[in-house]
């Protein structure tokens, strides 16, 4: 995998290292970028080099690699009247901090991007998701899309074709069981797992459902959700789901797939790399979105973004810094070209890059899965801060664990989810 060293001079040149291109405010101080580990560790190393070399008049760049719970770290820093100028992290974090009044809205940045043509380069429908009634809470740089993967050798051995709908998915799981392989594996341990709750959300969305109604109210008992959970229960009760799934952490999914113990899984776009297989010639292949019983397709997707904070030495400096930094991630001269960003690109010019086109799995996800993917708020079209509570929270974890235990009914499991979401009486509307 190529390093990012080659991109460094180009980007430094692009970021305006001369005072003539400064923000003009005369402000001085550090524009600090805080981020968790993104992609490979190499990315963070290169990012630190670039950010610390940033200079805009008297404004300099500072970089902080966050470990542990990013939200907690930023929250604690804000409580101590410190914090980042720009931060990355979890999908809903920008919405959470916006509710607290800590976010500087990115409307000016978006307007600039609309003028310079960057906005038009994005895949459609992403920016509106970042918009709240007060403005844009952040700038998207990539998507984390959950797609269904299969082991082509195992399916061939089982003598079954690639699933195209729920019925053929079930048939494939049955065929895999006959050769001593679990049809499906996921991870629903109470900590260090997310694939289990993603499975729950993805299958609901796949069936045209979702945890929220069109007005943003929790609506888990929606009949399409009931159908989706009944289907999952059918998989579990038939013995087609790896029985360890309820206590697996995400890495166990990779292990089971790698060892050929399970044939299919819903996972992130980098699963071949996680399993140490080649995305081009390896056994792990992404399938096309499977159709639900009513012909619906869909999956869950997280919108990766960077957000600006109100605590800054210069608002204009922050905005300029944000545009520069976003270009690093989302632009074609940035890290996607280096293959060190573990996400799906969202800029058309980047998607067209030969480095991206060389990965057939990634191309298939971009072409087939991203257009049908929805955020966790589905059927409600907007993202909102309440999703942070719901996403992989107690209610969702309990629900999927009970489903994987196989000793519940769809309505009982979903009622638990509904009660859990409503329990704290919070408003989940945007």
């Amino acid at each position, binding site marked *: 995998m190529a390093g990012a060293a080659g991109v460094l001079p180009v980007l430094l040149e692009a970021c305006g290292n001369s005072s003539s291109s400064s923000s003009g405010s005369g402000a001085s101080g550090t524009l600090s970028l805080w981020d968790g580990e993104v992609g490979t560790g190499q990315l963070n190393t290169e990012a630190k080099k670039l950010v610390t070399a940033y200079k805009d008049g008297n404004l300099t760049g500072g970089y902080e690699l966050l470990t542990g719970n990013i939200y907690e770290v930023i*929250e604690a820093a804000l409580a101590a009247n410190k914090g980042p100028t720009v931060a990355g992290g979890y999908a809903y974090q920008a919405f959470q901090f916006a509710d*607290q009044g800590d976010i500087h809205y990115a409307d000016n940045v978006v307007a600039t991007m609309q003028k310079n043509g960057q906005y038009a380069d994005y895949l459609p429908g992403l920016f509106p998701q970042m918009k709240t009634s007060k403005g844009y809470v952040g700038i998207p740089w990539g998507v984390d899309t959950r797609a269904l993967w299969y082991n082509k050798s195992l399916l061939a051995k089982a003598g079954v074709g690639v699933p195209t709908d729920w019925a053929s998915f079930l048939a494939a799981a049955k065929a895999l069981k006959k050769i001593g392989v679990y049809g499906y594996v996921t991870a*629903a*341990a109470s900590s260090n797992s997310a694939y289990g709750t993603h499975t729950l959300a993805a299958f609901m969305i796949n069936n045209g459902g979702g945890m929220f109604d069109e007005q943003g109210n929790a609506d888990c008992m929606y009949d399409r959700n009931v159908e989706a959970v009944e289907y999952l229960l059918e998989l579990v009760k038939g013995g087609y789901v790896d029985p*360890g*799934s309820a206590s697996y952490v995400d890495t166990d999914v990779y292990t089971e797939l790698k060892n050929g113990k399970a044939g299919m899984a819903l996972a992130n776009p980098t699963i071949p790399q996680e399993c140490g297989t080649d995305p081009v010639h390896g056994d792990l292949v992404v399938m096309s979105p499977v159709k639900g019983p009513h012909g619906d397709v869909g999956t869950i997707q997280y919108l990766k973004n960077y957000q600006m904070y109100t605590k800054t030495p210069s608002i204009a400096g922050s905005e300029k810094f944000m545009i520069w930094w976003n270009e690093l991630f989302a632009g074609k001269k940035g890290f996607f070209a280096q293959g060190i960003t573990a996400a799906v690109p969202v800029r058309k010019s980047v998607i067209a890059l030969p480095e991206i086109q060389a990965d057939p799995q990634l191309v298939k996800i971009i072409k087939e899965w991203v257009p049908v993917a929805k955020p966790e708020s589905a059927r409600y079209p907007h993202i909102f801060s309440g999703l942070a509570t719901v996403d992989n929270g*107690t209610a969702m974890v309990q629900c999927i664990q009970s489903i994987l235990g196989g000793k519940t009914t769809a309505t009982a499991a979903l009622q638990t989810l509904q009660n859990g979401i409503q329990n704290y009486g*919070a408003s989940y509307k945007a």
Partner: protein
Amino acid sequence: MTSTQTRSSGVLNGLSRARRGVGLGGRSEHAPRPPRRFSTRSITLTLLVIPSVVLVVLIYGYPAIYSVFQSLHDGNLVEVGEFVGLENYRIVLHNPVFWQSVEFTILYCVVGVFGSWVVGLALALLLRKRMYGRSFLKTLLLLPWVVPVVVTATAWKWLVATPSSVVPRLAEDLGLGQLLFLDSPGLAKTIVIAYKIWLSFPFMMLMASAALAGVENDLYEAARVDGASSWQQFRRITLPLIARSTYISWILMFIFCIGDFQSIYLLTGGGPVSSTSTLVVLAYETVFGNFQTGPGVAIGIIMTVVSVLVSVVLFRRIKKVQIS
């Protein structure tokens, strides 16, 4: 009267006096209580204690008061938010997961305290006997307590977590079927509690060993002469004489159990379906997993109140035991 009889009757007299709270560290029968006065010494001691008290108040007092404040507001970790009175407590008390956690917390504490005490005391009694390699065995038995929890919990998880782990495979080979220890609520509870007992018995063993060291062998010799069985010796001599130490170890172990976050979080994360979630795990998940600061802190407050009440009850029991 033989010398042995004289000695035994003397010992038993002493023991009965001891049970009445006389001698052996208790007050003498007619010792007058010294009058209270502010001596230079007591003033000096008070002055020496003040910095520590101030430090404790600053470290624990302020956060505790702020937590109570947070539990009455609808805020987050940064902002206090609006005053909502007891709404957070109402939310918590109406949450079935809370009561499920209360149930498991009680089970975890009771079985954790008494399970580790039984094992610890049994081993302490065993290690009183002269045996080959006793020191080595003592050291070995201390390992679960000494090794960091993150290491032992990970090791236990590695042993039982998945169908391909060592113990499930062994169970399958023995014809017990596929035992998924962390997928079934019953088995997960068993594993978590067994781990806690395994983790804590060395502490109980140390406490019991220290207490047993203070019990003179003469008492047992005399009891044997009087025809007492081993069980009677244990019940009538050992247990009463180590009672105070036992109560203290129970209090400490109860505090260890009720506040034990890392063991459960590392082993099961509170799952499956919150079956192994104790109040401390639920409080953490509520605040940092579900971002519900008020209800999460309310759980913490409830837990603290219960802990204090239980500790007070046990301390009062200790006061009644006059044997050190």
